[in-house]
């Protein structure tokens, strides 16, 4: 029930972001969602793609530094307070969120938020106990492609 997220190291310079995106475009990889964390000197690009192994191979061939991290995709009600409800559950379960970002679409008033936890397995178990909907990689792909 976890997703494999790819992270790519980028220097904070003009043109650096477009390089990995071009590699993925040439490899025919569709990006499901993307987030960029940055400091003054460097950035970390985080990606969710349908076939992470294929994307990783293409990026490494282009001499990018790529990491694979397990993240958790949680379904959230797309209404005021929807995210707050989920965060409250996590707070009660004492789960520390390293970072999070969202998918850019919604279906049937549901949004998907990606969470990075230190221990994703424990997080999945606790969240499922609280009856939160955790999406598998296949479910995420299905929803994106509609």
């Amino acid at each position, binding site marked *: 029930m976890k997703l494999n*997220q790819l*992270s790519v*190291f*980028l*220097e904070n310079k003009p043109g*650096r972001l477009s390089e990995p995106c071009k590699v993925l475009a040439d490899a025919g990889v569709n990006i499901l969602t993307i987030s960029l*964390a*940055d*400091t003054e*000197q*460097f950035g*970390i690009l*985080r990606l969710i793609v349908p076939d992470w192994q294929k994307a990783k191979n293409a990026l490494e061939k282009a*001499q*990018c*530094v*790529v*990491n694979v*991290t397990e993240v958790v995709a949680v379904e959230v009600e797309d209404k005021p307070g929807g995210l707050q409800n989920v965060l409250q559950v996590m707070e009660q379960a004492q789960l520390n969120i*390293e*970072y999070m970002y969202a998918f850019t679409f919604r279906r049937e008033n549901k949004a998907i938020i990606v969470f*990075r936890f230190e221990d994703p397995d424990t997080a999945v178990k606790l969240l499922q106990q609280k009856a939160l909907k955790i999406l598998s990689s296949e479910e995420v792909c299905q929803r994106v492609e509609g």
Partner: protein
Amino acid sequence: MSDVKCTSNVFHPNSAMDFLPVGQLRQLQLARYQAIVRRAYEKVELFRKRMEERSLKPEDIKSLDDVAKLPFTIKTDLRDTYPFDLFASEMSDIVRLHASSGTTGKPIVVAYTQQDVDVWASVMVRTFAACGLGKGDIIQNSYGYGLFTGGLGAHYGAEALGATVIPTSGGNTERQIMVLKDFNVTAICCTPSYFLHIIERAGEMGIDFKALPLKAGIFGAEPWTENMRVRIEEEGGIKAYDIYGLSEIIGPGVASACCAQEGLHIFEDHFYPEIIDPQTGDPQPDGTEGELVFTTLSKWAMPMIRYRTRDITRLMTEQCPCGRTVRRIARIGRRSDDMFIIRGVNVFPSQIEEALLAVEGTLPHYQIVLTRAKGLDNMEVQVEVTADLFSDKIGAMEGLQQKLGKSVEHIIGIRAKVSLVEPHTIARSEGKAKRLIDKREM
């Protein structure tokens, strides 16, 4: 190093001189020293003039202690006498000329008689034998062939050893890897930084380096560290031997590591070593660190008297587990002319390397960039990010940057800006590693 076993010692008849009793060796050195000083005095104007300035005659060298009276020779002397004025032989007796790559101005030219070329091959045989190689080995020689002494020096030595030599020369890394794999190569000669490049490239090509028959690397022509040796041995699944030489003295074959891999044995019967204080020029006792100085004891075409190498090391006199009696030099990690001064502090690139390696998992692909803004010098250390170092968390990456910065500051006492850069953005050397970019305008 207590687990060192020297059973792999390959004895070659040429190596006999490595085991000469010290008393006999000193007698031989003195006799040869006297002869070479006489030859330099009689045949080379520069040496004669310098000795006359000091009112010295060849017969004033009565003991090895007297050599400290002789003037030094420095690199610019070779430039100033370009191309042939340091030769002691007629051109008709010279069978080979080599020259330095010379990035600025004129190169330096060195000459060999047939006897010199034979001595050179014999000290390279002793080098290979000390590194455990012999007949039956297949040696890939990736030192550059041409004016550079590395290629031909190693080539003739490997042939005289009775090994099979593959003269790949430098460059074209994919082809190097193909030969390494397809020709069942057992030993490779190249610079350590180029070998790291080969391992890296082989990994990208999906080749399991440790499964290859390659067992030894004969690495020289640039300073490297003990940590780099350990890394090469682990990732390459080979023994990494350090060798030392310079064109001014003969080329590769001046000194070599042995199976004990602790220091490099100098082939002292041909190259007489001294350690001096680089500032004052005063001779230093054995075991003290200083600048390495050599006198060629048998080089006929172009004798070198007390040549200052600019390499910083110490002479080791302890008995080596391999049984050789010739003295050793400690691994050369730095050169007195690699040193740079920033805010009044002397810094060697090897100290930066040490600082980076002290931080867990950091591999030595780095570059030091010096800049000057408003009269203040700044040092930036660029470090390539590898998969091992990379984290998806910004905090972890900033933490790494800080740890590297602190480690540098701890070792050299100066704050440096550490920049994490993408892989393969620092130029890879096919030959020598360029660690320092000095953009300061003096």
